């Protein structure tokens, strides 16, 4: 199946890998990001290598008012789209997020509020048309709040519940919603961070996402073992967990 895919947050490393895979599978692309002209080399490369139509769209996730008209803007710029891939996110600094209001609001605002508003409006559009699909990249951090990263975890946890709701709402319309939960990925977001383990490449994540999408999975952990790691993490009783320093 192929058509046109809209990638929100196209500057991310995972988005770049997904764009290559989707274009290879025959999808035309709309790459949406802030200052989208920086993506011109990426678009040129995809057009040359894969001979697909690639359009750039200026998109600021934090401009909440603009999301209501996003679907129309995409259609005007490029054409009808069949797949929405939401990849934007803000990791921030967990230590700063404990004290600094700006950091807290940036993390929560980007990962949860902006994503929810944006996807909410796009979901309305998809439901009306009764076709298409939605993939949103969350994180394993959203599965349980941990002292080391709870602001980011909360934003992704909130997004997980939002996506569950969308999945429920859009199922009768035949629109599939998939939640992607990656562990640590080798991207600029994790650069310079210590104590990372089992770091996956963006290409590995992209491969897992597309394989799972073809099978219409609801929630995909990438790489696969994170499902079991997080299951164990979730099973720890709260009375014990609160004493751990995970």
């Amino acid at each position: 199946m192929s058509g046109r895919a809209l990638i929100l947050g196209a500057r991310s490393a995972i988005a770049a890998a997904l764009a290559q895979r989707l274009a290879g599978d025959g999808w035309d692309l709309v790459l949406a990001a802030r200052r989208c002209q920086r993506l011109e080399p990426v678009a040129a490369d995809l057009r040359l290598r894969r001979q697909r139509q690639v359009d750039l769209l200026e998109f600021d996730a934090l401009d909440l008012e603009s999301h209501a008209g996003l679907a129309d803007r995409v259609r005007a710029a490029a054409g009808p789209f069949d797949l929405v891939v939401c990849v934007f996110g803000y990791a921030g600094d967990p230590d700063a997020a404990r004290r600094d209001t700006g950091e807290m609001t940036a993390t929560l605002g980007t990962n949860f509020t902006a994503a929810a508003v944006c996807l909410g409006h796009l979901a309305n559009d998809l439901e009306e048309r009764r076709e298409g699909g939605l993939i949103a990249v969350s994180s394993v951090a959203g599965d349980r709040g941990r002292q080391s990263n709870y602001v980011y975890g909360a934003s992704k946890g909130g997004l997980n519940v939002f996506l569950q709701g969308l999945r429920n709402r859009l199922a009768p319309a035949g629109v599939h919603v998939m939640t992607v939960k990656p562990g640590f990925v080798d991207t600029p977001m994790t650069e310079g961070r210590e104590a990372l383990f089992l770091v996956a490449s963006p290409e590995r994540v992209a491969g897992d996402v597309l394989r799972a999408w073809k099978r219409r999975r609801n929630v995909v952990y990438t790489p696969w073992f994170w499902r079991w790691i997080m299951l164990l993490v979730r099973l720890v009783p709260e009375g014990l967990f609160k004493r751990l320093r995970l």
Partner: protein
Amino acid sequence: MYWAHQPPATWLLARKGSGGYLGTPAVPIRLRDKACVKTEPLHGWGRHPRLHGAVHRARDLDDLRRLARSSPTGIGRGAGRSYGDAAVGAHVISALPLRHLLDFDGQSGVLKAQAGVTLDDVIRFALPRGWFPPVTPGTRHCTLGGCVAADVHGKNHHRVGAFGAFVDELEMVLAGGDVVRCSRTELPDLFWATLGGMGLTGLIHAVTLRLAPVSSAFIDNLGVRTGNLGETCRLLRETQDDHAYSVAWIDLLPRGGRRGRGHVLLGDHADGPALAPLHRDPRWKLPALPANLVRRTGLRLLNALYYRRQLRRQRRRRVHYSPYFHPLDGVAHWNRAYGPRGFLQFQFAVPFDSGEEVMADVVERTRRAAPCSLAVLKTFGDHPGGPLGFPMPGYTLALDFPRTSRIEEALGDAAGTVAAAGGRVYLAKDALLTPEQTETMYPRLDEFRAARRRYDPGGRVRSALSDRTGLT
């Protein structure tokens, strides 16, 4: 999950960007809001020397400009396929994420691509469309930026020259952040200084390259077995005008009359309808090894067997481009065979007249210090390059040695011999040259320094190579 030229998915405990301080200390600097920069061990293909440096990845032109402005000193790094310390320094700007093709004209074969695009990428894109890199070194995993910075040559220098001969334009980011375009007509001094300039003139963002039209993925090769060095040299010289590609593998381990025996490969692109198959990624991969596997006895045996792989004196065969141009790419990480101490490659060019004597002298000096594990002999034609250009009309011999205790001194003496004979050592392979030797070997060094002063007045672009050889 693992790609040969991408950061691998690490299954083991990994600390990204951290490292101990062994050797050169990391300089604490301010980059964005980070107060301290973590370093990691960096080295070239020879895995020696190993120095700690901070790696900054440039994802797009804006990143390159920001890094050019903010980094106190730095050198661009591509795939790290130079053998010594050309892409090693206290600060290193990795162009690997700049891996996008920008433009291609299917009629003229002109390709514009970012500097991190490898020749592997170019072949995969261009060959199905009937085009091929006009000059390719012994590996396809080097980046276009690296090919320009080292002005690489292939098996066809005698006919067409080096990589720079096919570069129409460079888009560069100078120290200080300015984006400029240079070519033979626009800022020619920067253009020529950058070709072979080992990245010391600035950061390369994009390369415009003229590809060569081909109709086949195969090479028609004439293999000639020779009995000694004199015969090999004579054959290479005599056939200079006859074939597009010529190279000789020689065995330097025997003493006396059989030294320099080997196989001369004389090739031309086949005239065939098949632009397929494309090369495959290597099936074999060497793991990290605790010791050097390359020993004299084993080498003697291997060389003797390899010499006898062709029993007839002359043999014509059709060979796929991948084992023809990039035989060593068949085993990923083959440099690990030399163990943690790494190895050294000594490649030099000498004029034809004194060539054989100089080669014999170099071989004699190094023979006892370490066994020569690989010796490749080619001829260069008269194709002038930039001020730091390596090729000169004559012979070029590339020698690999495991890093034994005495080989460095022996190679120092050998470099002296080469310099005295009017030859020079290739900076892209070098790990040992001194400033005096470099001055002698590269008579146009002042021209290079003048260009650097013009385009990098603060001397912000530097590498371990430039510090060691006094290029800057």
